[in-house]
């Protein structure tokens, strides 16, 4: 005996006239954070005065994807978290975007919550208990395959680029790997997965796995390559700059690790959100049938 009908949320979510303002505030917070980072970076360069225009330009240049992703995340959350109260909205948010058999247990948790009328606290306890299960459940195998593929490709790309420039131009090569290719990859993975899975959640899961894979792949290759560059050329892998004091292999490896974590990872973070949101939106436009909001 089975029942295919997923309880459809009939109540309005937290989308209000304030939602655009909250989204704008989130974008401003992201830009503000980048302004602080830019200011700190310029201060470290020992500039006598830090022109505010430079700070603003730096924040806009580096921070626009974060601002856009923050605003997108606010709007997507507001459209997805539909329910009568906070527990219902929480469960709607964490169970959204599941389809077919994977949605059965999500629907079971939502239906069970709907039957709990004891107290708001009891409802919140139940929803909070279900949330980790709902988030973990139903990932399938494909995000792991994406993660392994991305780790392999980016490790190979890092080594190939490093060796080509070490024994060729002699200029640092890590920049070319960590700034550009990961962002494009994450955008495309998120977009394609969200399109195929017809949900932003699927896009986020795949692009999140891709981000983890890229980070691991880059680190696994860049750390030994950084040591190699220090031994062979005495310069940093990131940009080929020579340090003021002789560079040890450990110093070269550490610089490569720092470069990947500070110049790579923070710039990659918004792209899974942007790709997944774009894929889900494009799919919604292309699909004529009505669908639940935010998926």
């Amino acid at each position, binding site marked *: *005996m*089975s*029942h295919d*009908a997923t*309880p459809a949320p009939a109540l309005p979510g937290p989308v209000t006239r304030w939602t655009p303002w909250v989204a704008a505030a989130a974008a401003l917070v992201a830009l503000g954070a980048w302004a602080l980072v830019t200011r700190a970076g310029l201060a470290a360069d020992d500039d006598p005065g830090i022109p505010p225009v430079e700070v603003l330009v730096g924040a806009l240049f580096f921070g626009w994807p974060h601002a856009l992703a923050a605003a997108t995340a606010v709007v997507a959350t507001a459209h997805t978290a539909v329910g009568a109260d906070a527990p219902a909205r929480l469960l709607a948010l964490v169970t959204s975007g599941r389809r077919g058999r994977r949605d*059965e*247990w999500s*629907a*079971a*948790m*939502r*239906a*069970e919550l*709907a*039957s*709990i009328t004891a107290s708001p606290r009891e409802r919140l*306890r*139940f*929803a*909070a*208990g*279900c*949330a*980790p*299960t709902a988030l973990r*459940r139903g990932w399938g195998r494909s995000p792991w395959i994406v993660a392994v593929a991305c780790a392999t490709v980016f490790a190979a790309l890092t080594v190939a680029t490093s060796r080509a420039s070490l024994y060729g131009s002699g200029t640092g090569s890590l920049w070319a790997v960590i700034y550009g290719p990961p962002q494009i990859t994450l955008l495309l993975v998120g977009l394609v997965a969200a399109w195929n899975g017809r949900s932003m959640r699927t896009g986020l899961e795949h692009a999140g796995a891709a981000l983890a894979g890229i980070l691991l792949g880059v680190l696994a290759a860049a750390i030994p390559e950084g040591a190699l560059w220090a031994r062979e050329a005495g310069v940093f892998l990131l940009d080929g700059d020579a340090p003021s004091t002789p560079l040890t292999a450990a110093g070269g490896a550490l610089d490569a690790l720092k470069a990947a974590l500070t110049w790579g990872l923070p710039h990659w973070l918004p792209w899974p959100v942007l790709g997944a949101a774009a894929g889900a939106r494009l799919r919604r436009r292309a699909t004529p049938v009505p669908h639940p909001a935010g998926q």
Partner: protein
Amino acid sequence: MTRVRRPSPQTVAVLDALAAKASDWSHGYDLCRALGLKAGTVYPILIRLAERGYVETAWEQEVPQGRPPRHLYRLSAAGAEQVRERRRAEAQRTSRRSRVAGRPAPGSGAVAGAQA
């Protein structure tokens, strides 16, 4: 060779609670309350047991207006067999331990006699 993992105490508690209801259906929240376990513990167990075929699931057929149908759970034949098997094995282990320790198994006639 597949490794047979001993079920966790929480899984045993869920299985026992479902076994106590025999062929009657249970709800997830009621199981949480009856066992004093959080939903984050009970639902993963129910999902695993259902995937292994130890628990049957269904949706409520007669639903009061204003709320969606609830998911129902009960032990399948395989689940009931698993519970019986585990209880048999536990009983054997207990009696073996008691023999090794040189005292009669709890609940045996000798104990009852000694207490009397």
